[in-house]
């Protein structure tokens, strides 16, 4: 009767970082349910930060003490391998930093259900209402981000994609100021995200029809052995690609990114620009390298085109932007393109793949920290109605607050990839791998795009330092300890990775050495 189902084997130790994050999220929901309102924030913040730190410690412990496992965990659902552990560590640190930013100021709406501009909203603001549910939601999203790049089959990947995205859709709509824009961003993100998820799911179904399995390793084997059903394989792989490329905002699926980055509360934008990008790239590389590795001859030209388009669109459209967050969004698109260059740089030799992978990993770390720092600076430049979003308001910032403007300029230079910043080594690692992989034309396009991008970064710097400040210019708020810590940490990371990148490069290299488990 009972007991005929064999209990599954779950490697709890391997999954511990993820389980800690999910567990903390559920405890957070319980706190919402049972703790009195005035205590909630005081419980949530330490709980969230501690769980992220604890998960990070567990990841380190796993990598350092226990060694890197060589087979997939939890009945083959999750592959906790070198790249996955590296990505987990990156995401956890970035999420920790973003949470510091989230708790810093009042970025979030007082009562989400109140119509913008209504009396209820005013009353809620007056009463100091707050949605403390934000913390568990962020933890849910982070949990999804951890699961996504480690997913060893397409179904787990899909579920993780949803776990990651759903809280983010919601969080996007909770900005305190410019609420209509925020809600529009949330709806756009939700609709387009649902659409892309459908693509992903359909691709999964077709690949299942092709390979008879959704396990990445089995699909990989089937690519070599199953014949006569190539349409299924190609269309399935294409649909899967659409779903994944949407998440990283590669052209032509980039349209959501500026709107969403602009509308979302800035800390959430920081989380999306760093954590989501890292997670999505991890999953993209895993799916294309592990699952569709045997098909690289076919997907490489497509990704080639996508990478060129993404770099060009990101760099060129960024020039025309007047909103600082939209500009950073286009910059993020361009960086996605640079990263795609690394994805293409595969080869027959394992060493080539490892060097491309380590380049991608390093780039993700470097870009993640810089972008979180840049958005943290954006939160500090305030007008009467919230953040000073229009670029013209930033004119002359260097004269009012040289330190802040200097830091922001430094981040922009890192985005541009100037030597002695982290961005330089990131681009260098990726492009070098691409050159040795035989993708020289792509690298040339990448360098040109970098130059174009450098133009608008420098334009902002010129605007900040060599223009006269407006008479009623924005004020620089004194950062809270969290925000200050975020900015400090980002500056530190950008400097250290730019001056002395070797330890992290080594780490990325050793993580990439074993490649993905199959």
């Amino acid at each position, binding site marked *: *009767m*009972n*007991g005929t189902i064999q209990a599954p084997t779950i490697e709890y130790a391997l999954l511990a970082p993820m389980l800690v994050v999910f567990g903390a999220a559920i405890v957070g929901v319980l706190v919402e349910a*049972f703790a009195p309102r005035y205590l909630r924030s005081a419980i949530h913040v330490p709980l969230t930060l501690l769980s992220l730190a604890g998960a990070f410690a567990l990841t380190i412990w796993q990598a350092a003490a226990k060694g890197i496992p060589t087979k997939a965990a939890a009945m083959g659902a999750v592959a906790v391998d070198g790249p996955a552990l590296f990505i987990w560590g990156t995401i956890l640190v970035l999420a920790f930093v973003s949470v510091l930013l989230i708790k810093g100021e009042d970025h979030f709406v007082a009562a989400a259900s109140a119509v913008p501009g209504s009396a209820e909203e005013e009353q809620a603001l007056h009463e100091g209402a707050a949605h403390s549910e934000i913390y568990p939601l962020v933890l849910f999203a982070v949990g999804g981000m951890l699961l996504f790049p480690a997913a060893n089959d397409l179904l787990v990947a899909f579920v993780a994609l949803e776990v990651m995205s759903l809280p983010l859709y919601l969080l996007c709509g909770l900005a305190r100021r410019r609420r209509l824009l925020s809600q529009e961003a949330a709806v756009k993100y939700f609709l387009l995200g649902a659409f892309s998820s459908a693509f992903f799911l359909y691709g999964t179904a077709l690949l299942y029809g092709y390979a008879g399995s959704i396990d990445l390793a089995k699909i990989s084997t089937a690519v070599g052995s199953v014949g006569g059903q190539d349409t299924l394989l190609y269309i399935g792989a294409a649909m899967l690609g659409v779903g994944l490329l949407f998440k990283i905002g590669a052209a032509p699926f980039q349209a959501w990114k500026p709107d969403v980055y602009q509308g979302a509360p800035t800390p959430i934008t920081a989380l999306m620009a760093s954590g989501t990008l890292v997670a999505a790239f991890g999953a993209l590389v895993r799916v294309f390298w592990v699952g569709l590795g045997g098909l690289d001859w076919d997907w490489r030209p497509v990704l080639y085109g996508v990478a060129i388009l993404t770099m060009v669109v990101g760099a060129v459209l960024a020039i025309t932007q007047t909103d600082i967050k939209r500009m950073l969004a286009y910059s993020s698109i361009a960086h996605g393109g640079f990263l795609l260059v690394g994805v293409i740089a595969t080869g027959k030799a394992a060493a080539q793949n490892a060097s491309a992978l380590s380049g991608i990993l390093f780039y993700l770390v470097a870009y993640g920290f810089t972008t979180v720092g840049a958005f943290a600076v954006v939160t500090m430049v305030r007008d009467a109605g919230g953040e000073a979003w229009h670029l013209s308001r930033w004119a002359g910032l260097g004269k009012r607050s040289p330190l802040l403007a200097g830091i922001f300029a430094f981040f922009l230079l890192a985005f541009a990839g100037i030597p002695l910043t982290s961005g330089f080594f990131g681009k260098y690692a990726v492009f070098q791998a691409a050159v040795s992989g035989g993708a020289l034309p792509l690298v040339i396009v990448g360098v040109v795009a970098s130059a174009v991008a450098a133009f608008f970064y420098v334009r902002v710097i010129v605007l900040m330092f060599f223009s006269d400040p407006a008479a009623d210019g924005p004020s620089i708020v004194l950062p809270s300890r969290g925000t200050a810590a975020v900015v400090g940490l980002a500056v530190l990371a950008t400097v250290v990775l730019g001056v002395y990148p070797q330890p992290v490069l080594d780490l990325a290299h050793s993580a990439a050495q074993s490649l993905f488990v199959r």
Partner: protein
Amino acid sequence: MNNPGPTLSDFGHDPLWISIIKAVAIFVFLMLGVLFGVWTERKLISRMQHRYGPNRAGKFGLLQSVADGLKMGLKEDLMPRTVDKVIYFLAPVVIAVPAFLAFSVIPFGPMVWMFGHKTPLQLTDLPVAVLLVLATASIGVYGIVLAGWGSRSPYAILGGLRSSAQVVSYEIAMGLSFVAVFLKAGTLSTSEIVAKQAGGGTWDIFGMHIPTPSWYVFSLIPSFLIYAVTMLGETNRVPFDLPEGEGELVGGFHTEYSSSLKFAMFMLAEYVNVFTVSAMAITLFLGGWRAPWPISLWDGANTGWWPMLWFFAKLALAFAFFVWVRASLPRVRYDQLMAFGWKVLIPLNLGWILLAATLQALRLPESNRNGILAFGAVVVIAGLGIWLRFDTVNQRRREARAAEVEEEFEQLREEPAAGGFPVPPLDLPHYHGVVPSARAPKEEVTSGSN
């Protein structure tokens, strides 16, 4: 013990004509059941209220339902002009058909000989038969919703909306109350669930072997109690008959259906639904067709055609329970109904399922008992801690509120005019806010303009 009854493998071998006989028999049984069910209900409720009830048509008024049916068939079928015709026609059908469907998986008895074939007294069975019953019940909601919507009348639409919310909510609680049964029986097939209730275990205590009762109503009493409540909610019967609450909604969803054949379909569906949920209660909790205890001592009680008798007897008792409830309880308020469903029944059910699953897990031979017990203890202690904390908070609130009320009374007592009794002020809106002396001269009002 003896004759555990048919298993899943006994189904699907009947020749077509036997299946047709069974289907027709079920149909006829249900139709007759409705005819006499209505009569029984009216008679029984009358007796409970010290009246006679119908006693003109036939002996004891037995033919009252037949007469009513004839009247409904012969009446003019009114159709309001604005209705959505297709939906208006479809609704009675949609509500009646699924009601009958569910009975196809109800076991009436064990294997019997029927015209030279050995066959179970049940139309068919599925590995997921109970789900079928739940699914048909959920289709039945459409009948009510569509009747409300298609009628294009405010009362009807309110009734339809109420019912959709109510049935969906109570279906969750109902489905959850089945879970413990599934856990215990290890199957979702109705015939096998009945078979599992054949023999109870023994309870070894102090060297004595006390036989435990085998019906799930004893071992899973919380599930049964919750089911008993939800079956009232699911069938829209008193005290949960909000969708047709005649006090506030005239007739609710069937306001616009004149008492014609379409209305008869609604009545039919309601009674068949009552039979269905009763039969489910019997199958899942009350031992199905198995004979109750004193009778079950007789060896032949659970063989041949006898079990059908026990089944009908149980069905009659369950129906009587419905009538009894109707005679005793007033209708609940709508918000109370929803709050009860969502905030009481569902959490209680979830907690009970957890407990039942834990007990079930403890019984597995390979289970880690200490681990389960330790975890359970943690959960219980945490739950107690939370409860204690909230209890004190609530207690403080209650005391504060009582003090407030007391203070108010103190104030009132000092006002001799009020004398502690509330006196309506003279400028109530009821008097149109006008003090009588200042009232304008009366205007002529033609009758009927109101």
